[in-house]
């Protein structure tokens, strides 16, 4: 009985380690705009991104100043931003799971709109 419990425990630990190893493989790159870039308020600005989802990932959210503004279904692509008011803005691309919870795979940049 003790052996079975020990084996079960080892299995869960192994699964946890495998999950942890996989979890480190996810990544998000915001290809453009670059961090600190200046954007023209009168131009149609885009966010170009590339995502390696990792485990437990389902889709990607785009946030502008902490507010979700788009659902990105593709792992790589470009998304047109809504008109941004002049000033400093934070843009974040976050990988979320099926329950729409950010799983910690994300990148944020700031852009200055003039």
């Amino acid at each position, binding site marked *: 009985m003790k052996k079975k419990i020990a084996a079960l425990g080892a299995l869960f630990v192994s*699964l946890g380690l495998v999950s942890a190893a996989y979890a480190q493989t996810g990544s998000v790159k915001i290809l453009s705009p670059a961090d600190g870039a200046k954007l023209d308020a009168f131009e149609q600005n885009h966010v170009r991104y590339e995502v390696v989802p990792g485990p*437990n990932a389902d889709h990607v959210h785009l946030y502008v100043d902490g507010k*979700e503004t788009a*659902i990105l279904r593709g792992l790589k692509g470009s998304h047109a931003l809504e008109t941004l008011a002049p000033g400093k803005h934070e843009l974040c691309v976050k990988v979320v799971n099926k*329950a*729409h*919870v950010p799983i910690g795979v994300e990148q944020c940049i700031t852009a200055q709109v003039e």
Partner: protein
Amino acid sequence: MGENLGYALVQIAHNFGAVAVLGGAIFARWPTPATRQSGRRIARLVLAGWIIQIASGIGFGAASYFYYGRLPDIHGLAVAALFVKIGCAITGVVLTAVYLKREPDWADTQRGNSWIALALLAALALTAAAFLRWFS
């Protein structure tokens, strides 16, 4: 693994709750109207279904909080859909409880109308669920 299993278990409860609330309400009316006795049994099933819907709905939030320390990140139409679902579930619980308490004094028409209302509530909740899933 553990996370997926946790969400899957909550989803199982949520799915069976959905079947109970919609299937029960429809079956009470069609293909033939339920008798008073069987109507009460179905009402208990539907009441249990709505309670399971509420509990498992909370379960999704609890699982997210357990695994990531935060609630699902939803905005806009998805939030509206969530509120529609919550409203349907609360109304469903109240209406079914009222049915079980007051049904002995009701005419067949009133009983029939209650089942139609419960079926529409369930259908609305299921429709809102689709918007919640895909608009966030």
